[in-house]
């Protein structure tokens, strides 16, 4: 028996706005009358470390998604997509921002950063539904590269059991008014990107 309608794993780097994605989905699910669970990375890892959030829509159990149980993997950063790929179910969808964010281990020359193709190839073996996109570039087009998280949310929208109207409503409630226009555009560009 399935214990959740839709399990989404959102990964990235501390500071990329991963928590905002969870907040918007959670708020939208609640507006839609669905039971929702989520869990976030706070604390030490937020300082430029690797972060993972779980969101379970239509779920009344714990907020933790099992490895191999994710219906959607949303990666704000390509290396982080591969790092957490084991959370994806074989039928799952991976939405991957292709813009790398170099960790300090790479900038200081202790490690090297693989090519995007090297990252995507094993991801494609894990799932037949991998959608790479330049979310940071699209967010720039929308008016701010900071809105890459909302581009990813736009791309994710069709995979969620929540109407787009609810997501838009939650977006307006959570994002400060002065950034709303940019974020609406970012959402739209993300949505179009995966159509």
């Amino acid at each position, binding site marked *: *028996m399935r214990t959740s309608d839709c399990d989404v794993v959102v990964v990235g780097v501390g500071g990329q706005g991963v928590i905002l994605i969870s907040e918007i989905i959670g708020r939208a699910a609640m507006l839609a009358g669905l039971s929702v669970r989520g869990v976030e990375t706070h604390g030490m890892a937020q300082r430029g470390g690797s972060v993972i959030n779980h969101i379970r829509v239509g779920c009344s159990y714990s907020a933790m998604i099992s490895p191999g149980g994710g219906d959607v993997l949303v990666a704000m950063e390509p290396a982080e997509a591969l790092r957490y790929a084991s959370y994806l179910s074989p039928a799952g969808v991976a939405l991957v921002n292709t813009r790398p964010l170099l960790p300090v281990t790479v900038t200081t020359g202790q490690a090297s950063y693989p090519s995007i193709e090297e990252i995507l190839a094993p991801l494609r073996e894990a799932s037949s539904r991998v959608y790479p996109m330049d979310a940071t570039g699209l967010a720039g087009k929308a008016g701010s590269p900071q809105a890459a998280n909302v581009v990813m949310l736009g791309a994710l929208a069709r995979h969620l059991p929540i109407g787009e109207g609810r997501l838009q409503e939650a977006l307006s409630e959570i994002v400060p008014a002065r950034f709303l226009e940019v974020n609406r555009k970012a959402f739209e560009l993300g949505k179009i990107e995966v159509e």
Partner: protein
Amino acid sequence: MVIILREYLLGNVAIARGILEAGAGVVSGYPGTPSSEIVEHLAPLAKEHGIHVEWSVNEKVAMEVAIGASWTGCRAAVTMKHVGLNVAADPFMTLAYLGIGGGMVLISADDPFCHSSQNEQDSRRYAAFARVPCLDPADPQEARDMTLRGFSLSEEFGLPVMLRPTTRVSHARATVDVGTPRERKASPGFEKNPPHRVALPVHARPLHAELLDKQAGIEEALAKEGWNRSQMRGEVGVIGSGIGGLYAEEAIAELEADVSLLRIGAYPILRDTVGDFLEEVDRILVVEEMDPVLEEFVEMVAKERNPGVEILGKRSGTIPAVGELDPLTVRNTIARMIGLPERTAPRMSTEVLSILPPRPPALCPGCSHRAAYYAMRKAFGRDAVFPNDIGCYTMGVGMGTVDTCLCMGASITVGTGIRFGGEERGICAVLGDSTFLHSGLTGLLNAAYNGARMTVAILDNSTTAMTGHQPHPGSGETAAGEESPAISLPEICRSLGAGLVETADPYDLVSMIETFERARDYPGLSVVVARRSCVISDIRTGIRRPRLRVDGEKCGGCKLCVSFGCPAIEFDGKVATINALCSGCGVCADICPQHAMEVAR
């Protein structure tokens, strides 16, 4: 009338709402992941609700403030992370003897897997040690419900009640039903009652007996609360505590299996609750994070009620003894017990994952701690001993200036011991401003009193950065945003007996190095305050500095700047480059021997 609303809340916010619903009048705490958001949520609401909310100087102080408040008849809550309870253990243990006035809830948030902590200690042990009730919520709803009920249970028992959330409860979000805040009850004030307020031996002896006598009644009462509940569905059983019980419940639903389940949310447990369950099963699995607290209890009851039952758990190696549980581990363990197939996650091979660069948490671009460490290393040399402490600055471990990290405030005292233990090399103990005020003061006083020859570096960024920028007595404001005189760290250090106290700005690298050199050469106890606001605070207050760029013609490719470790500095194979993360601190310009860094126009 209480109106119940459904909201999407962080576990810690759900706890904060429970505190408001209970009509608490005083809330105190010291920041610590995963507990910080409770006081953070309440502080801005303090004025509106007429309550006192404070960031205390440390957990012991926070606990004692809450105890004093409770003794006026006011309801009080105190929050901390698990290791904070070590600091507050002294008042906590004796409070159980003396008892409370108004209802008092202690929130001690545990951190299985050490996500942001130095150990995996289990607060349930402390509750049992002190003989106070402990509530172990599985999710944000239970966290709110237990907090609210915790206050009235505390009043019924005359004892503080501990709420023990874990990281995955405190930092979970869920739809939670919450009620409206209750108005703060007028407190009658402190009532003189020496036998219950003065822990003289003559009072403590009967109080100890009284505490022990209460226990049976507490077990009976907690058994009626519904947090320890069972569902019988066969001879295989699972007993789970807190989130472990919820993982088990989900696993049993997913497997559609006939497995009996006993979920535990409140301690101490009535023996019959476990005994009755054990009589109906022949094999059981105990699912809990951290210590086998529940498992040991089950083993004890099994001896009386069903000696033949097979008990699986941590002691049998069936459930991992360290780290945190995940739902798949619990699911597969239960599946194995009943002969159902396990589900394998699509493991990425280590070969595949080996192409990924590690991404550990790091000091921010432009963080002044990096510059302070650089200067410290220049002055003291790599061979000196650098006892370190708990805070953002521990992330400088790769720079060679973090030799020890034990607990809050231990840098100065461990450094003192290293000196008296016979270490002849230079010693520079490092801690942050908030940590110094938390528990470095006594260590510095001790070092001065006992004549330790060493340097103490206080990396002062004017905030408690690691846990989310909470103010402290040096910040100039309180948790609730009230102005408060910012105490002077140099003046405190002088009055505690440090012989040489100097302040420098880490962004002024040359002067920072010279200051450390003078401290190094001082023949006694010296203190260097490396003072520069946190870069994140700067961003939040709108302070912008122009970024730097590298003049590719001047750069000789020596990589000195790259080895500085700032995430904003990259190397393209020939020359250094500066990326968009640059916060304009300008320290790299001082490091570069070719003077190749310039302000970007």
